[in-house]
């Protein structure tokens, strides 16, 4: 039986390495909780994390800003919570975006993340975007 407590923190300052860290953190959580690679709730969570993570790492580090993206992943009982904060422009207008038509090549990320999570929180705190991804496992 795996643990039901887990905590991981990292500062991310590069797209490719940042994505590696996000996936690695989920892999560690998978191992810590004794879940298999085919565990569906964790796989859905990782998919949502990949979407929000790539948005944040792509748009959350404006040119000239050296401020990294702050990332934390924790397990509280049976609920996994990821938080990401970035110093990119506010994104309120993108939050309600619906799933685009199948022929569209982009614009799916937020709609996918919303439907895969139990809760996707977003707030603008001064010049910082704060994201909170919640999934019951």
């Amino acid at each position, binding site marked *: 039986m795996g643990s039901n407590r887990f905590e991981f923190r990292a500062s991310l300052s590069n797209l490719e390495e940042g*994505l590696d860290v996000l996936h690695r953190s989920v892999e560690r959580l998978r191992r810590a909780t004794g879940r298999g690679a085919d565990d*569906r709730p964790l796989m859905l969570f990782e*998919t949502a994390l990949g979407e929000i993570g790539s948005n944040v790492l792509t748009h959350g580090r404006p040119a000239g800003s050296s401020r990294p993206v702050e990332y934390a992943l924790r397990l509280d009982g049976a609920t996994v919570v990821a938080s990401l904060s970035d110093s990119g422009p506010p994104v309120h207008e993108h939050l309600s975006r619906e799933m685009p038509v*199948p022929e569209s*090549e*982009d614009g*799916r*990320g937020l709609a996918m993340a919303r439907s895969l999570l139990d809760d996707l929180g977003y707030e603008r705190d001064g010049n910082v975007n704060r994201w909170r991804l919640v999934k019951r496992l």
Partner: protein
Amino acid sequence: MALDVETRPSVNGVTVLAPMGRLDVAGAPALKEAIGEAVKNGTPKVVIDMEGVSFVDSTGLGSVIAALKQIRGSQGELRLAAPNQQVRVVLELTTLDRVFPYYATVEEALTGF
């Protein structure tokens, strides 16, 4: 982790591309390039062997949609083979499973192609 794309020798006019790694925002350009090369070389029948793809995101998926448009624009056809559970979930969630016929194995995808 960069995406590596192996282009297997064309058989009966069908090119099989085998990406290995994560097909995400960082990996998508490599697949786009390989598709571009395959179409340029006059083989618009393409199978993407997804067995080595551990994870796909919406940008990776976008690169497959772009490939589909490019290949259909050359009167060709694109098939996906051997997607893992995560790739299938993403295809279903985005209803792209209606656009991409996917096959359990490369051999099945090549049958009657």
